[in-house]
């Protein structure tokens, strides 16, 4: 069952919300880069990064567009961190029906961050002079696991529930009955 161990470079963005000054330069450059032709227009509404900001509450959360979620989730919780109350959605990357961010304003189609393909680094990071956004590349050792078949996964979960011996007995009984 154990697969090979391989090394992979994982690109991630470290978001230091404490350093965010709320200027939204990241939104400007993101939407400009993704315009067609490149840089021919800009419009934060098309940006794949948005700063959730409530200056008077000192809330500044730059958040990136991730997977599209076709339906609303159950997330209605509030998080209180250092005395500041955040909506759960503030940290969510999904383009989803419950909010208006990460959607093309004219078509409504979902947007997703592509780390500015073709550039040395995502441009939001380059334009964040205050270092609220930092590109982190880390090498991770990943265990390559051989893919199991569907049946095996199903059986494993049954074995989990009933015990392996009982599964074996049941299968033996079933095959005798045939």
């Amino acid at each position: 069952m154990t697969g090979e161990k391989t090394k992979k470079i994982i690109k991630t963005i470290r978001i230091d919300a404490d350093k965010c000054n709320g200027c939204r330069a990241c939104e400007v450059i993101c939407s400009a880069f993704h315009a067609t032709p490149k840089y021919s227009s800009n419009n934060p509404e098309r940006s794949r990064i948005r700063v959730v900001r409530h200056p008077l509450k000192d809330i500044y959360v730059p958040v990136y567009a991730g997977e599209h979620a076709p339906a609303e989730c159950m997330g209605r919780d509030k998080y209180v961190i250092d005395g500041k109350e955040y909506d759960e959605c503030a940290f969510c990357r999904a383009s989803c029906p419950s909010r208006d961010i990460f959607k093309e304003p004219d078509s409504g189609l979902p947007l997703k961050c592509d780390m500015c393909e073709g550039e040395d680094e995502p441009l939001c990071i380059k334009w964040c002079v205050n270092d609220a956004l930092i590109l982190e590349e880390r090498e991770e050792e990943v265990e390559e696991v051989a893919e199991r078949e569907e049946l095996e996964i199903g059986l494993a979960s049954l074995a989990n529930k009933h015990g392996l011996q009982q599964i074996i007995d049941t299968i033996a009984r079933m095959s005798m009955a045939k």
Partner: protein
Amino acid sequence: MRYAETGYNLEIDLTRGNIERVETDPRDTALYLGGLGTSAKLLWDRVPPGVEPFSPDNLLIFATGLLCGTPATGCNRTIVSTISPQTELMAFSMMGGFLAPELKYAGYDKVILRGKSPDLVYLWIKDDKVEIRDAAHLKGKGAVETATLIRQELKEPKAQVAAIGMAGENKVYFASIEQGRSSASRGGIGAVMGDKGVKAIVVRGTKDVNIARPAEFMELCNEVMQYIKFRNENPIAGVMPILAGLGSPQEMKVHDEKWHTENFMWGNSRVRRKDFWNDEIAREWMETLDSMRTRLISCYNCPMTCGATISPPGLPTYMMKCFSKLTYTMAAFSDLEFGLGIAQSATEYGVDGFSAPQVMAFALELYENGILTDDDFPGMPSDNEGRFYWLLDKIVRREGIGDVLANGTYWAARQIGNGAEAYAHNNIKKHEQLPLKLSMLNPIYFLMYATGEKMNITQIEGQFPQAPFPKREQREAFVKDWFQVPDEKFKQYFLDWELRGEKSIPYYPTPEMCCDIVDWQERMHYIDDALGMCAGLSSFPLKPPYHIHNYPKFIASGAGIDMDEDKLTQAAKRYRTLVRANNIRRGMRRKDEKPPKNHWKKRFPELEEKLLDTYYQFKGWNKQGIPTQAALHELGLDYVFEDFEKRGIYSEPVDVPSTATSAEKGKEVQS
């Protein structure tokens, strides 16, 4: 297709409740750029001199700069212009924050308000949908509070709000318009907004702003970004720390206030406290700022963190920038804790952070000197700080003596009489100036103070160092990478400028050199105000990232307008002259162009006359400061000449008519 600008203005007639989206003429953009430039043209065309500030015919124009909403770093300013109730001249006050880009994204370059709404309203602009909405429930609310309430009721957390507080509603002559972390404060434009019955302008935009030649434009943007980083890492040697870096003076960051507290005046711009700053005060003030300052913050698309959120104990949070940190403190001879506390009320009320403290200190000076008496201040607390809170409240409500003081020191002094005029000593063109009193006349500053129509010295000065460097080696080091100069001669002017001796103030720089220096500094500010660029990245600091050499390229590649340095200089000169033309038509003349008598101890009347003569001639203005026919013709402003001719402005006897006008105005206020 229009680039950088949207090509549309929003025209709103508040009397009739009529809203129109009007296409603008691209030829006007080529001639006057945008922002201040095209607004000056609108005021010229549509607000003749007979129109009083509080007339329904006065316009209140919220203009975006030409490059607002493009990726050009720091280009986020809204230029608000109207006729000022205080100076009765054209007022244009700028604010950063987030409104201008949002307005561009909504599809408009300007919002032009005319008429008067019968009831208090706010404007809700969401892309193509524009509504005039009832604001009765917001009457008397603070400006910051109003923004929060409107966002909640519209369920639009991302809407940008420019609002007035009680001062604007009650037409206080130094009422501001508050927005984001910024405010348009000078000239009492908030009073005009209140007079029009508009509590707030609320904007949300989701459209594109287009760029004419994207690759070229982005390269320029990247160069600017690189240079900002370079300048952040390499502050300028030989100048005081607040002048060494970029951005507005970094008042929210610095703790060391020795220079301001010992060189600027306290009270009603009276007392210099030379040995004020000491270790104990430094420690106390540092603790105060550290305990109240939540975060350093920026305007739209700018990394400079010139502002901060401030949370005084027991009071709501507000946003502050720059020198309002100390204006209340110093006017009241108090400490930073008081200053940051009362600024919270002042921000909600929406008053100018320079004028308001000075007006209150002026009132107390009149009281101390028996010109105002206990009868004028019924119920005023006996402690100094309590008095300032009390006065602020009376002023914004226009109650009792507050109703007089709400007109600013110039008009209040005339109304009070009994020698009060001598106490309104720090005005130019009826407008309160920075609390500065200096020793030796500085010829550069003399010209800037005298002829400036932006009314605030920080909005005129900038590119040329404020004072000579003591040693030649220091000067040589300074000019080495001074590529922002429009001409090499500026380097020589500076190299030869000495602290003492033959080549020192007041006779050096010579009047001719002063003309060049003042003209350059002013030109950069005027360009910023048409493009919407923050002075903090351009005309205000030494060696800024935006300058006369890269601006034409930004305009050409961004807006697709054929531009070079000469054309840009000419355009700036054109609308700068138009600002003056508006004011000339309203009676401004040479006699109005003078710094306060006591601004410098050592004055040189002959030299000052010569400076003014030389500068007027350099600018193409006659002895009265009126643009000449030839100068107007060269700028394509023949229509201004024709208007002046028709009004007999060139043939009027020197001084007489405008003196008569201002005397009449004085009576009007008293009645």
